[in-house]
């Protein structure tokens, strides 16, 4: 997502600043490598960093980072916001977050969710959701977002939460289902972080942001 947003923004920054921009994608280690490279770059204003929410998630679970996110980098602007989608396998007997919470309270520790890995944004978001809702859910970490989504669609896990809408939208027919209709049957979405309908999932329901 960072790479997509950076490449979208770069031409407009070039236009408004009159400087060429080169996007150098360093996607490994939850952004630690790219963030560290920027933190250690000459402070001449010619090296900028585009980060996602992992910028604040990673320090919360990793006290041994090679940089200090507040001391070594200066904030400029929040570029864009992305909704978080709560996706359940259609076999789960819950048609809303409220119904899901009721189901989870009746079955403590029995509902499991897929994440792209331990200590990722999805992991922390669902744990926060669990804490606020007073429910106990089982975490199943996978090696990346695509395997996590595949596991949820296959029914190996009951749900997941994702924020990479554009990647999911593009890859959904090819990776998770053969058609739009099949994709609709393979997952159900409940947006939980934005009050407006998301264009990446036009059939999804709205939330008022107080789903817990």
């Amino acid at each position, binding site marked *: 997502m960072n790479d*997509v*947003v950076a490449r*979208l*923004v770069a031409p*407009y*920054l070039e*236009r*408004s*600043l009159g400087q060429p921009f080169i996007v150098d994608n360093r996607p490994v280690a939850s952004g630690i490598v790219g963030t560290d490279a920027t933190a250690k770059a000459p402070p001449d204003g010619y090296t900028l960093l585009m980060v996602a*929410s992992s*910028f*604040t*998630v*990673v*320090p*919360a*679970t*990793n006290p041994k980072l090679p940089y200090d*996110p*507040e001391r070594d980098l*200066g*904030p*400029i*602007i*929040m*570029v*864009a*916001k*992305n*909704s978080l989608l709560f996706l359940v396998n259609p076999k789960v007997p819950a048609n809303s977050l409220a119904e899901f919470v009721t189901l989870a309270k009746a079955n403590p520790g029995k509902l499991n969710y897929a994440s792209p890995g*331990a*200590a990722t944004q999805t*992991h*922390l978001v669902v*744990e*926060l959701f*669990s*804490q606020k809702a007073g429910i106990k859910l089982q975490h199943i970490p996978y090696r990346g977002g695509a395997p996590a989504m595949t596991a949820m669609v296959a029914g190996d896990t009951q749900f997941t939460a994702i924020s990479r*809408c*554009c990647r999911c*939208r593009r890859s959904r027919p090819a990776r998770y289902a053969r058609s739009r209709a099949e994709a609709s049957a393979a997952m159900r979405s409940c947006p939980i972080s*934005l009050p*407006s309908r*998301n*264009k*990446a*999932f036009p059939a999804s329901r709205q939330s008022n942001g107080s789903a817990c």
Partner: protein
Amino acid sequence: MGSSIALRDPELIAKFAQQGLSAAGGTPADFQHTIATDLKNWTETARAANITAQ
């Protein structure tokens, strides 16, 4: 600042929308406050759930 000017460009806003994104904005101070708040919240969440990077 060029970044805030760029984020007001209707063409860029439309491209964001195609990706399911909405343009944000604000001042560096706003962004710093968001970062500090998120760091605090995620640290508390991770501590309560005993989550550490492996």
